[in-house]
């Protein structure tokens, strides 16, 4: 029994290893594309941030007669350039066509003369409206403007307090903010960042695992029908489920290899470039150790088994390579959606989500990245995945025994 399954396995593996398309999806894409994608993304983000932080910002100010210090503050700050604009009504158009990056409109709220009997000659508070394009996520207009205004506000505040006779800095602080909340989060930084970014990585591993298994699955069943080689295989003196098991093991191996190579690609990139990566993503990726990578790879094994049995079953049913592709294309959504669930805020690994295939693995990988994995959940995850993979494999074997499937017209 074992020998016939092994014979089918060896032959199918040899054929798969000689198929350029399969090799691309199974080896080249995870091993090269993942590091390349991460490198391009991080470079792009870094460049965009640097560019946004150092770009010259063109601005216009209206109502500066109320508070001339604002105009002085921006004029003396590097990388800000004043642009003349006739009327505030032109602001939206000027921002839209790129003549302006921002516009400030200063509006006095109340007069100090009203408030303190005319003893002070300037208004108590001003509203400074910031007009800018707030759609780009990488925009640095708001923080850069706020920094200038905050500095100016601090200076004015200090002057006003000193005029009121409050000269000591500590007293000034106590008057301005009598109650101050200081945040002391108990979660380690890895958990915090893992929660925010940890859903992305399992999503990538799962998608590449699926893609790695897809072409061998189509080739090994629908492809055999199309090429006319299946009938000869049906006439060899071994039970048909041995043929299915041999083919399943190859598709499963392809899925595991693709997933592991995705990890290797990531690990390799981290080893070479991780230290240079800053920001939240860099902190999360640098925190992932070898043990975590091995555990993540182990979590992908049941996923690969589910994909292999599902894809093989569909491929066995299809009459041709093209028909199998048309069935599998919508199946992508079935894979993407459960994997995507793990990225949603509030979706956590518990006894309920641990029994949802793909989502459970995605959440478990996220927990491993965060460093908060509850290992007792592994039993449920592996158990539910194994049951599903077994049921799908049984269905594939059942398909393969049915004449109307094998000889569909």
């Amino acid at each position, binding site marked *: 029994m074992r020998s016939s399954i092994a014979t*089918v396995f060896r032959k199918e593996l040899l054929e798969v290893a000689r198929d350029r398309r399969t090799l691309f999806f199974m080896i080249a894409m995870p091993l090269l594309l993942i590091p390349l994608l991460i490198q391009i993304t991080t470079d792009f983000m870094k460049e965009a941030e640097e560019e946004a932080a150092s770009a010259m910002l063109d601005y216009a100010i209206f109502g500066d007669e109320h508070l001339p210090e604002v105009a002085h503050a921006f004029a003396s700050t590097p990388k800000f350039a004043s642009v003349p604009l006739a009327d505030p009504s032109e602001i939206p158009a000027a921002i839209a066509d790129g003549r302006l990056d921002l516009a400030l409109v200063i509006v006095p709220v109340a007069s100090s003369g009203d408030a303190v009997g005319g003893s002070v000659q300037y208004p108590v508070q001003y509203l400074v409206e910031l007009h800018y394009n707030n759609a780009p996520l990488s925009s640095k207009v708001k923080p850069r403007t706020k920094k200038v205004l905050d500095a100016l506000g601090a200076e004015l505040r200090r002057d006003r307090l000193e005029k009121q006779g409050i000269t000591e800095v500590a007293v000034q602080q106590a008057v301005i903010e009598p109650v101050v909340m200081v945040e002391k989060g108990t979660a380690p930084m890895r958990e915090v960042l893992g929660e925010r970014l940890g859903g992305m990585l399992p999503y990538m591993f799962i998608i590449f695992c699926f893609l790695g298994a897809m072409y061998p699955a189509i080739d090994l069943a629908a492809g055999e029908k199309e*090429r006319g080689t299946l*009938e000869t295989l049906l*006439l060899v*003196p*071994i039970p048909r489920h041995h043929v299915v098991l041999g083919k399943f093991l190859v598709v499963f191996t392809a899925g595991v290899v693709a997933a592991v190579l995705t990890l290797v690609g990531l690990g390799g990139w981290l080893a070479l470039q991780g230290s240079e990566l800053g920001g939240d993503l860099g902190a999360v990726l640098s925190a992932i150790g070898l043990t975590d990578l091995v555990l993540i790879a182990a979590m992908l094994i049941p996923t690969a088994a589910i994909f292999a049995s599902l894809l093989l079953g569909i491929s066995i049913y299809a009459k041709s390579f093209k028909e199998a592709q048309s069935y599998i294309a919508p199946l992508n959504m079935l894979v993407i959606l459960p994997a995507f669930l793990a990225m949603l805020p509030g979706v956590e690994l518990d006894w309920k989500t641990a029994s949802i295939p793909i989502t459970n693995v995605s959440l478990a990988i996220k927990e491993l990245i965060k460093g908060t994995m509850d290992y007792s959940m592994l039993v449920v995850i592996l158990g539910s995945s194994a049951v599903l993979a077994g049921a799908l494999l049984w269905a594939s074997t059942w398909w393969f025994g049915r004449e109307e499937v094998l000889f569909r017209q």
Partner: protein
Amino acid sequence: MLEVVGLSKSFPLAKPRRRGPPPGPPDPREDGRLFHAIRDIEFTVPSGAIVGLLGPNGAGKTTLLRVLSTALRPSTGTASFDGIDIVRDPLAVRRTLGFLSGNTGLYGRLTPRELLAYFGGLHGLRGEALTRRIEELSGLMRMGDYLDRRNDTLSAGMKQKVSIARTLMHDPSIVVFDEPTTGLDVAAAETILRLVQRCRDQGKTVLLSTHHMHEVARVCDRVVVIHQGRMCFSGTVDQMREHGGDRALDRALLSIIGLDAEGEATRA
């Protein structure tokens, strides 16, 4: 020896065809729910004989060969090869059977040597016996020059030789050829016919499905004619000529199945 007893095979009709009558004249093989591809086929082939399986396209020849080769299970009836029943012990039948079809494909990314090793392995050949058998067939089919080239780089004739070698890898006692010369040039077709005769000379039972009457006249000892799923005739080639009332086998065949040269029915 091959014995076929009351062999029938029916397929469920596709749902749209169940709902209403199909366009054109009704097919006598359809009964509303089922399509009876072959019905009550009975014949016997002694060992060391070549039996030609004749009939027009869609007569049921391929279905009959698929049932006999255990790719399909019969709906009723059975057949046996040297006493081994195709229903009760299909795996044992497959050990004694070789099947070659005109449209059989090869694994393009394997070499002939790898392909033969694969099928030999699935038939239980291992180690030295497997290597020896590959060398033997390579010599017999003169495949030495391309034994280690990938199949997808071979010509049609070379591929057909590889297919033949695959069919004979486990030295079967019964060999089934389903339109093996379709699409081949004269030289390649000649190779096949010589092989068919060689199989008989070795005492193998041979079933040959073909549309070429010159092949029947040249190699067949007996013929079985099938039309619309039913057996119309079984006997020697001379008996077929006599039964059809014509020395020319193609005209005798048309007469037996009740068609004229234009394919029109000559009798109700």
